[in-house]
């Protein structure tokens, strides 16, 4: 009886091999023959096309090359890369998508959707906006730092993991969620690429899927404190000759009809002081405290007003209008209100003193 089962099952499978007439596996993932690329960089190409480039081979001890293609479609680039390079490029390990500022200003939706619907591409793909010419930077660094692509990825991963406030690192999923959720604004980190340098600039805000503006310097730091990470490892304030470190923030937002009170509690410690005050003296330290407070209040207010002008609300203040029992506001209604809001910014800074008073 047992043999009969086996025979009939074999016959059954045999029949299906004949019917379908093809081998089940089409993809070849032999590791020696593929190049699982780590990043794609997308720039404005000629005649409205995209110029996409990547570095191959990743993590193999072999001379690295930068491949560039001018294409209409993203995946077309993926195909063309295969035609000019001896390894097949695979997207399974794609970790970063670097998009030029000019492309981002026209809207990212079509590009992002391509990657979103691809089950091979991880939702943890980092999205980065580039100012300048990333291709030139990579090309220039090829000999000096052969594994640069991998190290860049490690950098993003490092700062994403613990949310230390250095950079706003955003992955594909978070961007998509912010893009589709009402009353929230997608944002991405901006890096400036020169021939020799690759520098973090700040945070870019999006209206729908198009890049609107960038917050950099102190604006970006305040953004990290108020919404993204609620933590800053270091906050140097050169105008007060002071560096405050290990800052944690608690933000309370109270919305009224036409005004919003933003109350921020900060806890941190002075890590460096090069000014004239004697910060070991309690009274002078309090004075410094007040100065930092005024400084932050002023810049926060400025940042909020800038955001009003840009018509974006990346701090998600609009979400504070939501309650469990009411219908949420529409994006349009909130934006209307957002532009009219008067802000009242208050910082309550608690910076640890250096010496205990006896």
């Amino acid at each position, binding site marked *: *009886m047992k043999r*009969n*089962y086996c025979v009939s099952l074999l016959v059954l499978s045999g029949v*299906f091999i004949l019917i379908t007439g093809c081998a089940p596996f089409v993809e070849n993932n032999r590791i020696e023959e593929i190049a699982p690329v780590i990043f794609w960089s997308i720039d404005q190409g000629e005649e409205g096309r995209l110029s996409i480039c990547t570095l191959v081979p990743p993590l193999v001890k072999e001379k690295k090359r930068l491949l560039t293609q001018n294409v209409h479609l993203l995946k077309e680039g993926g195909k063309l890369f295969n035609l000019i390079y001896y390894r097949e490029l695979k997207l399974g390990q794609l970790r970063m998508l670097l998009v030029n500022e000019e492309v981002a200003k026209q809207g990212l939706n079509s590009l992002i959707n391509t990657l979103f619907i691809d*089950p091979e591409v991880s939702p943890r793909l980092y999205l980065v906006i580039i100012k300048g010419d990333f291709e030139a930077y990579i090309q220039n660094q090829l000999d000096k730092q052969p594994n640069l692509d991998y190290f860049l990825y490690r950098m993003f991963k490092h700062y994403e993991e613990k949310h230390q406030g250095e950079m706003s690192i955003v992955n594909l999923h978070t961007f998509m969620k912010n893009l*589709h959720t009402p009353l929230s604004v997608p944002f991405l980190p901006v890096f400036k690429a020169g021939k020799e340098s690759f520098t973090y600039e700040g945070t870019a805000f999006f209206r729908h899927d198009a890049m609107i503006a960038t917050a950099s310097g102190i604006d970006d730091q305040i953004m990290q404190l108020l919404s993204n990470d609620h933590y800053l490892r270091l906050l140097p304030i050169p105008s007060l000759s002071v560096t405050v470190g290990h800052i944690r923030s608690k933000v309370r937002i109270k919305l009224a009809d036409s005004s919003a009170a933003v109350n921020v509690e900060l806890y941190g410690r002075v890590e460096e002081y090069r000014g004239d005050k004697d910060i070991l003296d309690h009274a002078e330290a309090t004075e410094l405290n007040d100065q930092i407070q005024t400084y932050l209040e002023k810049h926060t207010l400025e940042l909020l007003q800038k955001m009003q002008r840009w018509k974006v609300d990346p701090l998600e203040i609009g979400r504070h209008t939501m309650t*469990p029992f009411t219908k*949420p506001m529409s994006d349009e209604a909130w934006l209307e209100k957002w532009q009219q809001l008067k802000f009242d910014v208050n910082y309550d800074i608690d910076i640890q003193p250096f010496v205990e008073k006896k």
Partner: protein
Amino acid sequence: MKAISLYNKTSAFNGIYIVFLVNRLQMLYFVLLQATFLVYPHMIWAIVAVGALSQINLILVSKCFSSELLLKGYQGYVELFGKQGVRILAGIGLLFLIVKIIVTVLGYMEMVHYFVFPSMDSNWLILSVLLLGYYVAAKGMDNTIRYVSIVFLCTFWMIGLVFPFFFPPIASIYDLFPLVPTSWTFQSWKGVLLIWSSLSGPEYLLVLLPWLGKQQKSLKYLSIGNAISVAEYLLLFIAAILFFGSHYLDKSKFPVKSMIRYLQSPIFERIDILMVSLHIFLVVFAFSIFMLMFYGGLRIVMGRSLQPGKLTGFVISLIALTAVMIILNEWIWKGYTGTNMLLELQIWLGALTYLLVPSFFLLAIKRKERLKL
């Protein structure tokens, strides 16, 4: 041809098997898609409410459990409905069964095809699941029911994977607002129907009664199984809302799978593939047990249920089922409208069987008892 003994009863089953059976049949396939259809946070309450309704329905099921007639199997059915009546009912039952089998297997295989083997011909995947299912089914009803404990152990722990989604930075309380419905549309009703349909499955236990044997505290075990399922639904759905937000959620085809994809593990990068692969235990189990029911039903319809089963008949019905499956996959499931049509059909049929079968059986039993008096 030798006779085969698919339907022998050799041993009694513990009540815990009922818990496993109820729970796993309720976690079959729809639960993987549920979030996409429910979308809004207020559906949390719908899950709780429908779960409670299902509990009420299970009281009816447990009443049937204590009936001597159903314990007798085919003989009991004949006493209940008469010979012709059983044949007609079995015929109708076969239709429900076949749709359930097809949607479960094809739906699962579509997921595997989409995520794990996109370049492979999906018929191969279906064939492999079917072969596994046939192997389990050929071991007989007793062993298939026993197999559910392996299935439970292999798949139950996966619910633990959703816990990271309940903590920041992913979780934000605003994603759960508004908690009350601000508008109630036709879609919301369909969501409720989907939950009910996903909870269907325990009604099939009624035909397994001859194997499960007389259970003393059947309601207790049925309720535990149902409660675990509802808790799992809630965890999965709330996690999905926190992860996607309700406006992005309906853009995801397989929300549970996409959520697991987001997790990172230092050892194994694609936890989602592990999850999809382990889910095959459940699909194979469901397929084999439904397959045995199907074959048994087929024998009743053909009027042969009292004769010893023959291998030829079993193999022929296997081949026929395989052919139907592959043809449906080629013609219907691969197209968008076809998939939706079959899904919709199964949502309605599943809901219908769960609603009607227990009360129908109970009514028939009561009527019989009254006639006896």
